[in-house]
């Protein structure tokens, strides 16, 4: 079993839709979680960083973590064509393991005008 499982998609939504991207994880040592956006042939760009259960909002993006069910989500409101990209979730443990992220396989999102 992979440590981080991500809904494979791909997702195709109309402009303005609310997008929900989801991941589950199995490693109880994970303390923090990240969502990255990756455009084709580019490096991952950090969108959200969360360190505890609950919601974190940044503009049109909301990250949700439920450590009891080992479930993380990213919501995108008022989606735009420029949001079309691959979205990666990742989990990491603390201490000496900090920075050693375990990634999901990514969800390809297309927002069409």
């Amino acid at each position, binding site marked *: 079993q*992979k440590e*981080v499982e991500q809904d494979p998609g791909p997702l195709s939504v109309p402009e303005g839709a609310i997008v929900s991207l989801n991941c589950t994880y199995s490693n109880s040592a994970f303390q*923090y979680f*990240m969502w*990255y956006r990756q455009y084709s*042939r*580019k*490096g*991952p*760009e*950090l969108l959200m*960083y969360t*360190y505890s259960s609950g919601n974190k909002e940044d503009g049109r993006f909301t990250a949700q973590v439920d450590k009891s069910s080992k479930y993380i989500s990213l919501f995108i409101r008022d989606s735009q064509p420029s949001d079309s990209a691959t979205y*990666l979730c*990742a989990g990491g443990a*603390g201490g*000496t393991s*900090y*920075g*050693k*992220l*375990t*990634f*999901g*396989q*990514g969800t390809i999102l297309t927002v069409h005008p």
Partner: protein
Amino acid sequence: EADIYQTPRYLVIGTGKKITLECSQTMGHDKMYWYQQDPGMELHLIHYSYGVNSTEKGDLSSESTVSRIRTEHFPLTLESARPSHTSQYLCASSEHREAGNTIYFGEGSWLTVV
């Protein structure tokens, strides 16, 4: 915006050649990482460093080697490239402390071995 740079961005080389992928960051970060990403697949950690003269292998076995002689520089070397090494290599860095930190990635180096 992250100040982490990778060169070359794209490279096509023949089997058996030695190559070095360069990675530099200007943020003074102690920790640096190399991830490998095959098309459509997850990123996997292949090397990391917590500071000068510190290097460790990651979760995914790799025939590449790394060095960390200067804080800002973390090159990756393949002594004899093979077609199985064809992949995207991503360099990343982060500060030493945990809370509130982010891990920044470079743009990646796309390697094709023919």
